[in-house]
């Protein structure tokens, strides 16, 4: 049998088994869930072994005599000493190396990218100097770089920062500013939730598109047959759980 057809049957079956959870928790869902975890972990282990151990360590050392690679290998092996209580202290050298290098690389780059660049973008000039027109104020809300959007960003950032400033009681004008901050936060949460809904629906669309494709006779109609199997199993499980006395469940 063609591998594509086997793949279609497996993908259809696992999709339907996972969807069966929407009715209620059942053994088919558990089977698909555990298979997903097992296969993804197994795949990651095999790929990591092949890429790291074989191609990046074993072959360069044995075939190309790149002995300097033994230094990172030794540092990596120190990590494993955590499993030997008496030698666990050695792993601290490996962790110190990783934390030191990681922090050294990440801190300046993150500061530059997320703090300095974003501050620079927040405090844009409110009025733009355009050749021929002199100083201009643009009202175009659809243009992210317009003057009116620069003001909205400035108000939003200042009011949200003030809302999280807890050393002063939010009363009088401070309450208005804090409320404005809450309003901006609500809009941001709403936008994020809207995008999340869109993403989740996209995943559903992706699976249903595959199920429609696999209902084709060229695959042997796995969608049709496996829907029947899934529904039949759910009915059988439901009947069995009803016939059993409550204590045995």
């Amino acid at each position, binding site marked *: 049998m063609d591998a594509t057809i086997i793949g279609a049957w497996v993908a259809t079956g696992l999709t339907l088994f996972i969807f069966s959870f929407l009715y209620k928790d059942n053994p088919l869902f558990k089977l698909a869930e555990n298979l997903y975890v097992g296969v993804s972990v197994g795949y990651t282990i095999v790929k990591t072994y092949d890429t790291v151990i074989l191609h990046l360590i074993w072959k360069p050392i044995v075939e190309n005599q790149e002995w300097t690679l033994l230094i990172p290998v030794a540092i990596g092996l120190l990590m494993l000493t955590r499993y030997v209580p008496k030698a666990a202290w050695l792993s601290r050298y490996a962790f110190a190396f990783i934390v030191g290098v990681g922090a050294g690389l990440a801190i300046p780059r993150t500061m530059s990218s*997320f703090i300095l660049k974003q501050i620079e973008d927040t405090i844009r000039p409110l009025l733009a100097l355009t050749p021929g027109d002199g100083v201009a104020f643009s009202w175009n809300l659809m243009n992210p770089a317009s003057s009116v959007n620069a003001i909205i960003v400035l108000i939003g950032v200042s009011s949200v920062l003030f809302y999280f400033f807890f050393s002063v009681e939010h009363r009088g004008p401070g309450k208005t500013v804090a409320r404005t901050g809450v309003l901006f936060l609500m809009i941001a949460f709403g936008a994020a939730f809207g995008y999340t809904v*869109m993403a989740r629906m996209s995943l559903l*669309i992706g699976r249903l598109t595959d199920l429609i494709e696999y209902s084709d006779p060229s695959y042997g109609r796995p969608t049709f047959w496996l829907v029947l199997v899934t529904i039949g199993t759910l009915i059988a499980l439901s009947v069995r759980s009803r016939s059993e006395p409550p204590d045995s469940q």
Partner: protein
Amino acid sequence: MSFAERMLKIDRRIIFVVIGLCTLLPLLYPVGLPIKISQEVRGVYDHIESLPERSVLLLSLDFDPASKPELYPQAVAILRHAFKKNLRVVAMTLWVSGTGMADELLTKVANESGKQRGTDYVFLGWSPGGTAVIINLGQDLYNAFPSDYGGKPTKGQPVLDGVNSLKDVTYAISLGAGNPGVEAWYVFGKDKYKFELGGGCTGVMAPGLYPLLRSGQINGLIGGLRGAAEYESLIGEKGRAVAGMDAQSATHVAIIVLVALCNVFYFTLRRQARQQGAQS
């Protein structure tokens, strides 16, 4: 029990069925709702369109099968555009669990476009280290990836002529489903090695990446299946993303209606409770 109470306690499986039907019916009977192109998607398209032939496009497929419905159509559309423009495509991934899928995707689109592995495109595969791989690529591509996914040495491949590091890349796009992804490519790649960067991401991540777009840190952003549909429309090759847009719109309408109804029932119940409280 009043109607509003019954509606608020409705079996959630009925809502699942409604959403399922709203998704399934437009997929079976599409109506072809119009798709408006956004500035952020056009940013990526226009930049690729402006590149001269044989420019180097680095495509980092930083996702795994869990994000396939959203990012796979984006990758297909970008690759079709790049091959149509006769660009050299250097593909890679920072996600180990996505290597097999990325290779299959690249090979499929390249074969469709009649492109040769090693001459027109190369898949470097995955290398451990996450963000450290980006830094390593910025210093020496051949050190980061001594061989491609098929085990062939990267040095000497015609597709990599004149490419020694990220500084020699004309345009880079990261299609990311998380970390490492678009942000990592900006922080450890573009900010340090100064190449033009575009991004593609899942819908969940898009709001978090808009600040990078506004500040010009990335020159375009393809967000979710919607972004993929816009890109497919721009290149004139409608695929899975465009096909899913009717279903997307239908489910969004269904969810808006459900949210509105829930609010109506909630406020009705609250008013009833207040009236009963005032009477007693």
